[in-house]
């Protein structure tokens, strides 16, 4: 009896197409992923049960840690116009290079008088600027700096996007209440009565 020979087929499949798709997706995710900017101070956020997801756009964040306050706003245009407005209030003019540098800063926290030298240092000597410890934005009511930064950011957002800026506070667990209380008072002074506290979500 003649044996019926089964033709042996190669088990190798053509993976070219799969590889193409895989790398296409990989490229997409790499391009779209935004890396979280480092916080200027280590911040361990408290946890809360019923959290909501913060919208990604149109937000400003006040980072609080070790008694220091840092401010960051989304959007290059808003940042540029905010810097110009606040500069006018304190009669400081920024050069176009300084403005361009400020726009790239993820977050900042210092006295307005220190800002111009710091931006200059970033342009001329970035290595030195990295080791510079930012002291935080002054919270006192005499110079009213945080108040002005927040207000100008809100104004810029309304002018450019026509939306109300959503302000969120990202505070460290161990931060003592007075700092948070002062910030809330500053926000309430300009009738911002609704804001968000950034928290981690916790299961019941």
């Amino acid at each position, binding site marked *: 009896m003649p044996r019926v020979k089964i033709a042996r087929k*190669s088990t190798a499949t053509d993976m070219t197409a799969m590889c193409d798709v895989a790398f296409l997706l990989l490229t997409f995710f790499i391009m779209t992923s935004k890396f979280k900017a480092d916080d200027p101070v280590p911040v361990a956020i408290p946890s*809360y049960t019923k959290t909501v997801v913060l919208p990604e756009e149109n937000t400003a964040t006040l980072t609080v840690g070790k008694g220091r306050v840092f401010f960051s706003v989304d959007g290059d245009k808003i940042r540029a116009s905010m810097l110009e407005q606040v500069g006018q209030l304190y009669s400081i003019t920024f050069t176009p290079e300084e403005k361009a540098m400020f726009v790239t800063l993820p977050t900042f926290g210092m006295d307005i008088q220190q800002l111009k030298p710091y931006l200059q240092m970033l342009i001329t000597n970035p290595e030195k600027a990295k080791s510079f410890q930012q002291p935080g934005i002054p919270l006192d009511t005499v110079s009213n700096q945080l108040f002005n930064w927040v207000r100008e950011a809100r104004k810029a957002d309304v002018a450019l996007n026509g939306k109300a800026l959503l302000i969120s506070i990202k505070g460290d667990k*161990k931060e003592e209440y007075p700092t948070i209380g002062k910030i809330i008072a500053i926000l*309430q002074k300009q009738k911002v009565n609704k804001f*968000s506290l950034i928290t*981690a*979500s916790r299961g019941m």
Partner: protein
Amino acid sequence: MAELNTGGGGGGHKGGKVRSKKASTRVDLTAMVDLAFLLITFFMLTTTLLKPKAMDLVMPDKDEKTHDELAVPASRTMTILLGANDKLEWFLGVPGDHPPTTDNYGKDGLRKALVENSDKVKKESGGKDMIVIIKPSDHSTYNNLVSALDELSITGIDRHAIVDISPVEVELLKRDHNY
């Protein structure tokens, strides 16, 4: 992975001519695909997990000029004083009405007190909600405030406000070594 040599080597050695073997042009892509999918998984997970979560906080409207404060019936209020070392004190009504109770932020601490007092107030006032006033002292932490708000949201008490602490209440905290 098994891969058959498909190209070349067909002729054999007939005629004594030595033909150079044609090497297969196929490359094993398995490892590359594995790596690509691993990275895809990584980026997919990290992009979705990093969305910041937040809680909304609504403060009562505050007018600095008029100093008008909402009058709340003392019989329906519970005041929570946030002290140092993760301790809190709560009392019903105005300070002096009831002796304050020192408590913690846990499940058996503040949550239990909130549920009990809420039921009590509801019974006494004929179905009206309890109003909770949170007063953080200067030595309490941000985490304490969020924890207290968290307990309120867990117990479903919607009527609450964050108010500045008064000297009388600081004295209370000091007396009980919670300041």
